[in-house]
């Protein structure tokens, strides 16, 4: 095969795939939604029915996870694309409206149509109807196991009394085997009912935070008392732990939302629903947040398609279809015509659900809520972790909320700085070209001389730059811009303002230090374990192929599920790691996920586990390039094993390991997923962040794209200086022979 044949073949393959992978954009209605599986199945059956009645219309529904829906839809809609319909809880509407990516619905539907819905189902902002809901709720209630709880509690006193009775240590090992109450109490959303129960709320009528209040302090103390004083809730419980306990019948009551109930039924729990307790001290019921869920239309939808969409929405929002959905999924409908329907009146779950909805408070749709959640979480978890007191936490929440709202609303305007940076940018590009002029000329001269080398090297380099150049340049420009919630579509260059903010970030340096520890701990153990295993496997003892295959499994299994499995293994009470520590090593159990240092160690352990197989494979490949004669010669000279390791193995696998280590450092430094999954987005109290997850959370949650770009450029420069130093030190761009 000649080189020209080789490239011709490559070209042909590419063309073939261009041909057969290209699909025309079909004229179909695309829905993105955040429905749970059973709701999705119900929607699909409604779509099937609708398509049968309307043969000209094709509808596709796609599930998106909440965060992904938000960021994905914003990205797509700004790009002039995206789904035609978005379906989700009303709180996502605030940002969509501010960025102006959804159509007002009162221009699409007649008044008679709109009037048939419960007022709570119609989300207006400044006279524009932005969402029509088909489900009310998304609300927390008290769910109880009828086998354990005969009469559900009404007041907080009754709840505590009952909880004490139900919290039982059956085998006498000092730890309860059954709890009175469980729930995902570390998450602020699941705390809000107790804030409202004592009479507090998160925002005032001007959307200013109201977190530093006596009500907040009482609410925080109440939760801490449930755990520490009355001991009726587990020491450590996230969503999945609480869910498992209740499903196994090891908890009398759980606080959870309407999405979870049918799952309890399917697990064989005879469950009942009752409103959250009445707080005696305040004389108020605990009020959960209520959020309607419904449809909004993408601003990019063209008029001819709008008619089809309208037809579909009229169908799917009709009372008949809502009734069918309600009966299947136990969600509460929005068509007023259904409220006296016998099917609803006769269902105790739905009736109690309605009582809870009536007691609940609507979740504000304003974008500020995002800042409220991010502000509450760290201080709330710090109270539960015992590191600060409730009054201090309330104060910190309020302070953080004010800062975050300011960041969310930031509006940088600096035409002079913008002009300077523009001149600097153009100037530096010009200077670069001028500086490289001789190299560029030499390059073109060389091109004909070194044809062979360029023919081999250029395709790979060209494809890289085709893909990366535009996004990269775009981010550089963005980092000097004011792109934020105030300027998503009309951002301008404002100069170094975003960089100044990055360096003013008080946490920057501690997080940087953590990132360094994270990166080097990971790479050190990846290489150490990987190379050691490779050396052992390379001895080719009987059975090594089996070990080799089993050892790559952590690399082969999708990260998401194993990362969450590890999180489960780190659970304080039920996780296998603590059980091994206590039973086999007689150590005391470790609060892995509750204390910052241990949580960080847990994340690192998980990532070491995920990454060592890949280093092992590379080292195994690298070992093959070492001629056996060298070892034989060394044996004759009577060399010890560590001499052989130091003088033969390490120098000769170095050329193969250096690229892997360099890139391993870069990837680990920027590895968002594992930190995010194992620590549940930085828990406890945002103490387990590395730079990249911090920028992701700080910037994307608050739509600070310009800031995120500047932060990313800083990360890039850190890595670039590392890369240059490391490669110079190891001389990896040179050859060994």
């Amino acid at each position, binding site marked *: 095969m000649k080189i020209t044949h080789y490239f011709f073949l490559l070209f042909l393959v590419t063309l073939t795939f261009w041909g057969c992978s290209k699909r025309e954009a079909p004229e179909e209605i695309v829905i993105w939604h955040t429905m749970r599986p059973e709701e999705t199945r119900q929607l699909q059956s409604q779509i099937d029915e609708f398509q049968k009645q309307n043969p000209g219309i094709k509808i596709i529904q796609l599930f998106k996870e909440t965060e992904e829906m938000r960021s994905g839809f914003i990205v797509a809609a700004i790009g002039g694309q995206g789904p035609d319909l978005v379906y989700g809880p009303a709180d996502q509407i605030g940002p969509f409206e501010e960025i102006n990516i959804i159509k007002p619905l009162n221009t699409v539907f007649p008044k008679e149509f709109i009037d048939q819905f419960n007022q709570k189902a119609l989300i207006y902002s400044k006279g524009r109807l932005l969402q029509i809901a088909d489900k009310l709720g998304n609300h927390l209630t008290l769910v109880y196991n009828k086998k354990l709880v005969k009469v559900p509690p009404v007041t907080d006193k009754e709840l505590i009394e009952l909880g004490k009775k139900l919290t039982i240590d059956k085998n006498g090992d000092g730890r309860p085997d059954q709890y009175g109450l469980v729930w995902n109490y570390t998450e602020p959303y699941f705390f809000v009912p107790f804030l409202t129960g004592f009479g507090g709320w998160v925002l005032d009528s001007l959307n200013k935070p109201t977190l530093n209040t006596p009500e907040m302090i009482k609410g925080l103390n109440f939760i801490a008392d449930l755990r520490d004083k009355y001991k009726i809730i587990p020491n450590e419980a996230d969503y999945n732990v609480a869910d498992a306990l209740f499903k196994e019948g090891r908890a009398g009551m759980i606080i959870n939302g309407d999405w979870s109930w049918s799952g309890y039924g399917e697990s064989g729990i005879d469950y009942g629903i009752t409103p959250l307790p009445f707080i005696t001290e305040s004389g108020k019921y605990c009020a959960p947040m209520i959020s309607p869920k419904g449809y909004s239309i993408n601003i990019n939808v063209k008029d001819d398609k709008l008619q089809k969409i309208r037809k579909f929405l009229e169908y799917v929002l009709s009372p008949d279809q809502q009734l069918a959905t309600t009966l299947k999924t136990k969600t509460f409908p929005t068509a007023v015509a259904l409220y006296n329907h016998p099917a609803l009146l006769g269902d105790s779950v739905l009736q109690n659900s309605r009582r809870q909805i009536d007691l609940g408070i609507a979740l504000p749709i304003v974008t500020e809520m995002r800042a409220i959640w991010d502000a509450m979480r760290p201080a709330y978890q710090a109270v539960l972790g015992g590191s600060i007191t409730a009054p201090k936490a309330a104060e910190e929440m309020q302070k953080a909320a004010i800062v975050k709202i300011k960041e969310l609303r930031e509006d940088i305007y600096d035409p002079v700085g913008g002009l300077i940076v523009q001149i600097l940018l153009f100037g530096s590009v010009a200077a670069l070209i001028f500086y490289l002029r001789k190299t560029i000329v030499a390059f073109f001269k060389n091109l004909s001389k070194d044809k062979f080398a360029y023919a081999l090297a250029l395709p790979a380099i060209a494809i890289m*730059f085709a893909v990366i150049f535009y996004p990269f340049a775009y981010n550089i420009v963005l980092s000097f811009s004011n792109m934020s919630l105030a300027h998503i579509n009309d951002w301008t260059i404002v100069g170094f303002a975003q960089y100044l903010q990055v360096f003013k970030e008080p946490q920057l340096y501690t997080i940087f230090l953590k990132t360094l520890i994270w990166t080097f701990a990971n790479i050190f153990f990846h290489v150490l374990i990987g190379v050691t295993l490779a050396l052992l496997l390379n001895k080719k003892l009987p059975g090594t192929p089996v070990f080799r295959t089993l050892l790559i499994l952590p690399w082969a299994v999708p990260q998401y599920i194993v990362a969450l499995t590890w999180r489960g293994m780190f659970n304080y009470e039920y996780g296998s790691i603590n059980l091994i520590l206590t039973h086999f090593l007689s150590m005391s159990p470790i609060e892995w996920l509750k204390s910052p240092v241990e949580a960080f160690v847990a994340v690192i352990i998980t990532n070491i586990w995920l990454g060592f197989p890949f280093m092992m494979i590379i080292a195994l490949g690298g070992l093959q390039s070492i001629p056996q004669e060298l070892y034989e010669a060394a044996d004759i000279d009577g060399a010890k094993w560590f001499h052989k390791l130091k003088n033969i193995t390490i120098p000769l696998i170095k050329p193969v390991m250096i690229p892997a280590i360099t890139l391993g450092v870069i990837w680990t430094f920027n590895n968002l997923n594992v930190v995010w999954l194992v620590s549940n987005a930085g828990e406890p109290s945002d103490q387990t962040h590395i730079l990249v997850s911090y920028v992701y959370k700080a910037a994307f949650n608050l739509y600070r794209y310009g800031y995120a770009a500047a932060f990313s450029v800083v990360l890039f420069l850190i890595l670039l200086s590392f890369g240059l130093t490391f490669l110079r030190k190891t001389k990896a761009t040179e050859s060994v022979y």
Partner: protein
Amino acid sequence: MNKKNYIVNFFTYLFLIFFTVIALYPIINVFTISIRPGNKLLSTSLAIIPDGATFKQYAELFTNRPFMLWVWNSTIVSAVVTFTGVALASTAGYALSRFQFVGKQSSMLALLTTQMFPATMLLLPMYIMLIKLELINSYLGIIIVYSATALPFCVWQMKGYYDTIPFSLEESARIDGCTRWQAFYKIIFPLAAPALVITALFSFMTAWSEYIVAAQVLQDTQLYTLPLGLKSFESNMSTEWGLYAAASLVVSIPVVALFVILSKWLVSGLTLGSVKG
């Protein structure tokens, strides 16, 4: 042989077994989730075989879900990315290892720098670019992006491996009348088999497991790749854990199979020792 060797081998096995247990335990947990009834991610019991274990999730996967479609789609995408990765990285790595040319050092660095920018930030502009090029809802779009993602590592890795192969091999081939291309293609390329295996595995895995770009680019459910399909089992606070775990295990089978097949060249191909330099 002798007593000392037995002891060394004993500890070798002990160490291998220890790490294999560590490697396997979390995966066994995933298996337990996949056969546990009642859709629970966690359990308070440590039993590997849970009460009421059932394989119905696996049946569900193959009968009621378009799982085979996703497998097929992912196979096509991954196969093309693997082919492109191996073809381009083996040649580019060779050029970077053997020749001096203008721009060599800077292109090697530039390859690395492409990995240094946090990927999430590149998504928006990349998406805008793909819209402009009409590569949305097309495999070509993600194949190009995946190849570009996999190439920097693969090129560096190939370059590093070629560096360990003595120049004298090509020199003698040239003396025997080979062209430069033949010297590469017939002599050096087969000798680099272990590195090619790593390149192939890495390219394959890049395409096989990538989610974020695919989610933005592929909107048509008929084009869904495995990570997108798996994601459809997820949901806020009501993920179908059993199904997700079952699918995750099934998805790893092709990766392991590929590794087993390629292992032959990874550990016992033509090693340099057999070719006296």
